[in-house]
């Protein structure tokens, strides 16, 4: 469905995305992982039309969508959420949802003066839909709260909720899980699966929580230093040496405090993974 | 010879005046940019602060002159300048206490702050006029010229005059010193860095143990100093008139924004872009052309646009810069 070909995005001289090619299949929930600064968000932003690519192209169902504006992509059914929540702070939670659907009759000035009836009908419908979404997200009690007053996690939920107001084809989720309570994250995970199954949404998910990725995503794409490092099923990826070295790591070294891990074991770990882990080891040793 | 004459004409009528004017704009723009980046609002009162500071300097200069104190070939006003800075900065601090502080406390939106500064502008406007009246005042004394037209003609035998006023030299030298000092202060000293930190993220600055009151106070002191210096240099080079300083606000803001508002380097570059475009693009090139192309005297003035559109031209340039280089010449900060 979405095909990214040889995409490059540089900031000044720095190539945040460096000749990345990948593909998101229709109906999949594709995971996108990688170390901090790998270029995941940048890739999202290029696909979603926030940044112009330096080179390369993006197609959706065979149609070239490189460089289209965000609102144009929205109309093609491509939606996204933000890593840092982008709610409309002075609108109420409900209004945040109701504003989403496109081409509402009430968005034309003419109708606001001479088409009140049309507006009334469409508003009633939107209201119903918004309340359903709020129920689904378990934040109905906040419906009349200004969105700016929500807590960090609540804002994330709201972001997801907005994608549910329309029939999207593909939804890009940038770290929905960060800062979200794990129980709630499971709920979100369920929601994603349900949207995927029932409404046929395709998802592309950036997330650092491997449980979440493992439970939801197939395939998983790993990026590092602007490039695609590996690709495959979640289990497959989690065993990939390169991915472990660059991204996953091997767990806490200082867990000694909770469990008795010997100093030796620690050093063994290091032996196995030189590089990042090694340097970090020196750091902790100081 | 003709080529030299052409060169001298351009230097005399375009390069020298535009450089001095540009330096004055740059100093003004620095003040605006500083307040914008650290206190996060466009300070519309800056022009009138400049007027006030200059007014104080003039009063003190008169005092000195009455006491018979002078500064050799340099203008006495330079001696009065430090006192002017102290008084103006004190006024800035007072204004902050009485007016701005409250809005910071309630975390007012930037536009509210802008409006507040418009209110302060009105008051400063009246204050300056109460202080020193509305008349034009010349307060430059000491040697007027480094090179004057007659000397130049006698010296070189050229038909084109070249003049360099001492105030122009003083302006540029002072501007360079001030800019250097400011950059050193902001980039290298702890207080300077804490000011930038505060401008970036007020809450986090608090969490790092930075005292916001100190940052704000230092900002106002520097702003007061910059305004007084810029205003005095401008007044020395041209003349003082309260109303002019309000009008100066426009090119000052233009300078700050062309350069990238919030960025000190940008403010300086912007000052020169505005001054050179104002002077250069409305210059009538007739004389220069006559020198350069022998045996041809153009009928017209060979002027792109009449000086009526001086301001319009500089704004057009401004808009073009913004279209083709949307971040301003140097990346500014968006609040």
């Amino acid at each position: 469905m979405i095909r990214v070909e040889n995409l490059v995005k540089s900031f000044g001289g720095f190539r945040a995305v460096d000749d990345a090619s990948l593909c998101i299949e229709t109906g999949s929930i594709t995971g996108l992982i990688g170390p901090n600064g790998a270029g995941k968000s940048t890739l999202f932003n290029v696909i979603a039309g926030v940044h112009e690519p330096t080179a390369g192209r993006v197609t959706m169902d065979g149609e070239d969508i490189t460089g289209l504006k965000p609102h144009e992509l929205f109309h093609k059914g491509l939606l996204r959420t933000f890593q840092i929540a982008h709610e409309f702070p002075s609108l109420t939670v409900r209004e945040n949802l109701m504003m989403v659907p496109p081409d509402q009759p009430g968005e034309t000035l003419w109708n606001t003066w001479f088409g009140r009836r049309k507006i009334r009908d469409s508003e009633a419908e939107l209201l119903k839909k918004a309340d359903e979404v709020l129920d689904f997200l378990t934040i109905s009690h906040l419906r009349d709260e200004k969105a700016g007053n929500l807590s960090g996690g609540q804002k994330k939920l709201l972001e997801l909720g907005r994608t549910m107001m329309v029939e999207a084809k593909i939804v890009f989720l940038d770290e929905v899980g960060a800062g979200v309570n794990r129980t709630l994250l499971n709920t979100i995970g369920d929601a994603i699966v349900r949207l995927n199954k029932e409404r046929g949404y395709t998802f592309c998910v950036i997330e650092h929580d491997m449980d979440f990725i493992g439970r939801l995503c197939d395939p998983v794409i790993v990026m590092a230093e602007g490039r695609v490092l590996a690709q495959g099923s979640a289990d497959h990826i989690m065993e990939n040496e390169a991915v472990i070295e660059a991204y996953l790591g091997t767990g806490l070294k200082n867990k000694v405090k909770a469990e008795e891990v010997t100093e030796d074991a620690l050093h063994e770990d290091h032996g196995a993974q030189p590089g990042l882990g090694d340097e970090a080891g020196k750091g902790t040793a100081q | 010879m003709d080529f030299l004459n052409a060169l001298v004409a351009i230097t005399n009528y375009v390069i020298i005046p535009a450089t001095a004017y540009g330096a004055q704009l740059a100093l003004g723009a620095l003040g605006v940019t500083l307040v914008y980046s650290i206190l996060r609002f466009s300070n519309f009162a800056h022009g009138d602060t400049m007027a006030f500071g200059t007014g104080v300097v003039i009063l003190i200069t008169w005092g000195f002159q009455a006491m018979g104190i002078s500064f050799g070939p340099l203008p006495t006003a330079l001696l009065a300048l430090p006192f002017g800075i102290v008084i103006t900065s004190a006024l800035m601090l007072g204004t902050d206490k009485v007016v701005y502080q409250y809005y910071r406390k309630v975390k007012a939106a930037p536009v509210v702050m802008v409006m507040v500064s418009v209110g302060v502008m009105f008051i400063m406007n009246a204050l300056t006029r109460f202080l020193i009246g509305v008349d034009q005042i010349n307060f430059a004394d000491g040697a007027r010229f480094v090179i004057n037209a007659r000397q130049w003609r006698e010296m070189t035998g050229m038909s084109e005059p070249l003049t360099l006023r001492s105030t122009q030299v003083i302006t540029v030298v002072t501007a360079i010193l001030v800019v250097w000092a400011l950059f050193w202060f902001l980039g290298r000293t702890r207080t300077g860095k804490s000011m930038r930190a505060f401008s970036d993220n007020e809450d986090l600055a608090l969490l790092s143990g930075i005292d916001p009151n100190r940052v704000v106070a230092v900002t106002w002191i520097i702003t007061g100093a910059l305004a007084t210096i810029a205003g005095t240099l401008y007044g020395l080079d041209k003349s003082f008139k309260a109303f002019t300083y309000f009008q100066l606000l426009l090119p000052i803001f233009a300078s700050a924004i062309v350069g990238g508002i919030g960025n000190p380097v940008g403010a300086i570059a912007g000052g020169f872009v505005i001054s050179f475009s104002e002077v250069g693009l409305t210059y009538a090139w007739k004389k220069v052309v006559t020198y350069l192309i022998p045996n041809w005297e153009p009928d017209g003035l060979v002027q792109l646009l009449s000086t009526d559109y001086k301001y319009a031209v500089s704004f057009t340039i401004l808009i073009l810069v913004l279209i083709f280089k949307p971040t301003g010449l140097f990346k500014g900060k968006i609040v």
Partner: protein
Amino acid sequence: MSYLDARDMTGGYGKADILNSCTLTVDKGEIAVIVGPNGAGKSTAMKAVFGMLNLREGRVTLDGVDITALSPQDRVKKGMGFVPQVNNVFPTMSVEENLEMGAFIRDDDFKVAMEQVFTLFPILKDKRRQNAGELSGGQRQQVAVGRALMTQPKLLMLDEPTAGVSPIVMDELFDRIIEVARTGISILMVEQNARQALEIADKGYVLVQGENKYTDTGKALMADPEVRRTFLGG
């Protein structure tokens, strides 16, 4: 009495109280972790401890001294460090300057501390001259934690330090936190990566609607099936 003792905190942003008689204590060298659903008031509790919220009731003592009335800057001087959940870097200052600002109240040489931060987060060394605003989400988080470590505080408060950081960095971060705690510094943190966090915690708080719902050792909370199911995602 514990090193930090915030007792019966009650207050909020406007009309309604967000915190309802919430109590948090940390001993010297101890790691205390706050978990709870979104909107429970965890961040609010942290802000309250740091003096960024007006408390209607309750008081905060540090090392036996009542600091309820102190301003945040003064609390920094008393040895408290805080990494907020959002807006936790100086975006137009370089990474290096961000760290320097962390050491603002220190008069001694902070070069050593900075080197330590760089070894902990190597990527920051590469990016030391880049503005923090141009970093990726996870990199920023590292800068934020680094900045707080620069203060060399006696009490370090972290609001979701691992949100958005990759697993490998998260592990490093937790490692470093344990180390820091071992040197006698108290740690109070909010975490949504609750299982990892509780694993290293000496003490865990489950906050619900601004109230202490469960308080126990980290292990005990992890072992409680009810807590696991409702708050830790099974």
